[in-house]
């Protein structure tokens, strides 16, 4: 119980300001609030300052002030006198939870969690108190004061800075810039010993000293490569910004006008700083988020999930070597918990399954919680491509199907290797199931995983087949010579030079699989579910199929399942359709 509350409190996501897509907040895209004093989401600098002054009083950091004249409609108390819900009455049905101790605001958990990138928000603390919280765009540059480290509250800066302390932590984490290692101490839990381990450009701890000797030899090469990569990304960034347009306005238009250009550019890699945004655009999750305001909050705060314990078990075991997730109960782990829990409530049939943490974990490095949640929904429910939920449903039907398809493709494209695998009793589930379940995010270099995800989100699961086949193709001759034991090892530990995205991906693209995949899917269905429509599970299966139903899927997932998701969240006892 304590664990759960801990996870809820505090908060999460993202000082995405540093990533440059803060203005894509869902809030921001909505119509302005009806509040007479202007939108509560617009910063009110004067008030913020006033508020900050109060915060410096130690005994009463947030006594609260009525800064918005409009009492919110229908706010109500939750969970004793500790957590309150405020309804802004702006037609968006937004709720915020705050933690209050002795009448003082100590934490604004839902606000910080949900208001990923909005600039300000109001929170009602009690009957007479509405608090305006501002988050300045420059938040990422703010630092904790010494007082904060000693357990006191922030004394300078805006109210939001103090209230969003966890956010400030995070905002330093999120830009995976080269500056990260230097600034680590700033977000560190004051109680924990300082981190000494260096990080790579993605925020993963670099290997310990034992492997340093080897690393040192090609250290220069790596450095140089990273530099050219960075330069190339900068060149592309300009093109990309133009393609996306302000607020993502141009994106859809551009995709329609020049689909091949978009496809080509995505295959070359989405610039890292735009990745989170573009992923949301190509996956259709942006639309889901806009169509379902308030749903995520509802799921996170007011629903309970049977999977909570399972999720908690795995939280610290998801990307444990990434700085964002390395801190116990830190912002990364809490966000991850929230997203997974929300999904397990949203889709009770799937619930939580190991592997989903890696999907969500990867997404959370590039976007806020709510955005990551909807992207997960878009993937599993099939907003644009075939739904992935079958990877996680009981019996893992889609994993079985993919493995069947993959094995057959191996046999057809590399007959000698296929025969060798069979002889050595190598079953594809021994090496490829994690490729599908986590879309290469489980044990592959992050730089490769990201490039695969770029293409995966825009083109769908077939890229996983292609990359898998490309890997086998590249070490085809070596694999042929190996006995069982060596094969099992080799198929999980491909040589580093093979895993360079710029060499591996072009090979992957050259392997054509679409047509054959569709045929093999039919073959699989005939073998395994002859009457697909009669059974409940194959309904998803049949949706997982082909292009002919894609339009239907899209409509279905947006108007049908998504809405049903929000319905479900309101009436928690109905288990869904």
């Amino acid at each position: 119980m304590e664990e759960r509350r801990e996870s809820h409190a505090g908060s999460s996501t993202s000082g995405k300001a540093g990533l440059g897509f803060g203005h894509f907040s869902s809030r921001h895209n909505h119509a302005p609030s009806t509040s007479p004093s202007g939108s509560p989401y617009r910063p009110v600098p004067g008030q913020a300052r006033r508020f900050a002054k109060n915060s410096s009083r130690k005994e009463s950091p947030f006594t609260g002030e009525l800064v918005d004249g409009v009492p919110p409609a229908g706010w109500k108390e939750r969970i004793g006198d500790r957590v309150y819900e405020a309804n802004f009455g702006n037609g968006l049905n937004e709720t915020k939870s705050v933690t209050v101790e002795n009448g003082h605001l100590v934490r604004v958990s839902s606000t910080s969690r949900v208001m990923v990138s909005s600039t300000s928000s109001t929170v009602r603390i009690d009957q007479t108190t509405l608090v305006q919280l501002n988050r300045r765009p420059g938040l990422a540059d703010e630092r904790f004061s010494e007082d904060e480290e000693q357990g006191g509250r922030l004394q300078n800066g805006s109210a939001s800075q103090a209230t969003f302390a966890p956010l400030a932590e995070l905002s330093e984490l999120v830009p995976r810039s080269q500056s990260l290692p230097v600034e680590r101490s700033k977000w560190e839990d004051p109680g924990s010993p300082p981190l000494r381990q260096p990080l790579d450009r993605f925020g993963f701890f670099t290997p310990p000293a034992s492997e340093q000797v080897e690393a040192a030899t090609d250290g220069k090469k790596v450095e140089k490569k990273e530099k050219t990569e960075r330069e190339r990304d900068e060149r592309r960034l300009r093109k990309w910004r133009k393609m996306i347009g302000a607020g993502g306005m141009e994106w859809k238009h551009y995709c329609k006008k020049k689909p091949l250009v978009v496809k080509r550019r995505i295959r070359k890699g989405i610039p890292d700083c735009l990745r989170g945004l573009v992923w949301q655009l190509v996956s259709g999750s942006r639309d889901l988020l806009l169509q379902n305001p308030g749903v995520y909050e509802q799921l996170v705060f007011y629903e309970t999930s049977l999977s909570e314990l399972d999720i908690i078990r795995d939280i610290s075991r998801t990307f444990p070597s990434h700085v964002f997730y390395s801190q116990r109960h830190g912002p990364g782990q809490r966000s991850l918990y929230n997203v997974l829990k929300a999904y397990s409530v949203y889709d009770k049939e799937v619930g939580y399954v190991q592997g989903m943490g890696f999907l969500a974990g990867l997404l959370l490095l590039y976007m806020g919680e709510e955005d990551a949640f909807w992207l997960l929904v878009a993937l599993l429910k099939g907003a644009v491509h075939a739904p992935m939920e079958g990877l996680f449903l009981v019996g893992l039907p889609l994993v079985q199907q993919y493995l069947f398809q993959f094995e057959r493709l191996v046999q057809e494209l590399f007959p000698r290797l296929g025969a060798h695998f069979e002889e050595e009793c190598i079953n594809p589930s021994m090496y490829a199931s994690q490729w599908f379940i986590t879309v290469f995010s489980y044990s592959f270099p992050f730089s490769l995983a990201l490039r695969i995800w770029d293409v995966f989100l825009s083109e769908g699961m077939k890229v996983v087949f292609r990359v898998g086949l490309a890997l086998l193709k590249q070490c085809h001759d070596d694999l042929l010579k190996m006995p069982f034991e060596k094969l099992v090892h080799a198929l999980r530990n491909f040589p580093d030079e093979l895993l360079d995205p710029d060499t591996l991906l072009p090979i992957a693209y050259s392997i054509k699989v679409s047509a054959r995949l569709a045929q093999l899917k039919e073959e699989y269905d005939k073998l395994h579910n002859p009457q697909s429509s009669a059974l409940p599970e194959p309904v998803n299966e049949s949706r997982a199929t082909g292009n002919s139903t894609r339009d239907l899927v899209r409509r279905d997932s947006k108007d049908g399942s998504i809405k049903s998701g929000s319905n479900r969240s309101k009436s928690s006892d109905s288990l869904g359709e």
Partner: protein
Amino acid sequence: MRAASPAANLKVVLLGEGRVGKTSLLLRFAKDEFSDTQQATIQASFLSKKVLVDAETSVALSIWDTAGQERFHSLGPIYYRDADAALLVYDVTDKDSFDRVKSWVKELKKMAGRNIVLAIAGNKIDLDRQEELDLTEQTEYAESIGASHFTTSAKLNKGIDAVFQDLAKRALVSKRRAAAAAEAVESTLVPRRQGTLIIDERPKAPPKRSCCS
């Protein structure tokens, strides 16, 4: 490297609830490695190690480490169907994880061969600081199903070699006994079959070469 070739190649599978320490046990045993930050196991992984069961006999253990979560069971059978031994792991600080051991025992009775040898390991004894461990229920249960029971700590490297050694020893005995029994069955069945002319009661073909032995 020992010159003598192993007397047998035994297939072992590690089963148990998620996060009880299956992967850590195996890594400690096979590679003497331990990490506090072990990633969750999504797909089964394989390691092998030679174990000395007595002064002159060694066996090669081919060990499959599986994903803990129940949902992954559908991918499990290929790992435990023809296993010679199973190590069922639970976390001594988590009572529920022992229930999963029990359900695994039931599952194995249905799915695995009759001769599968079982051992139960209560892992993470290093975490239990407060009180004396009372594992009588667990040891009694283990006894009741003919499994051996051990307490282990992958972190402190306690009890792990003992578990695998025990498994290897008993699995080797069981395998030899099974082979002998199969021969015996064959020799008694053949004449009877000739007498009664029941053709479909032919003794089962010897089990297919197991995948990783």
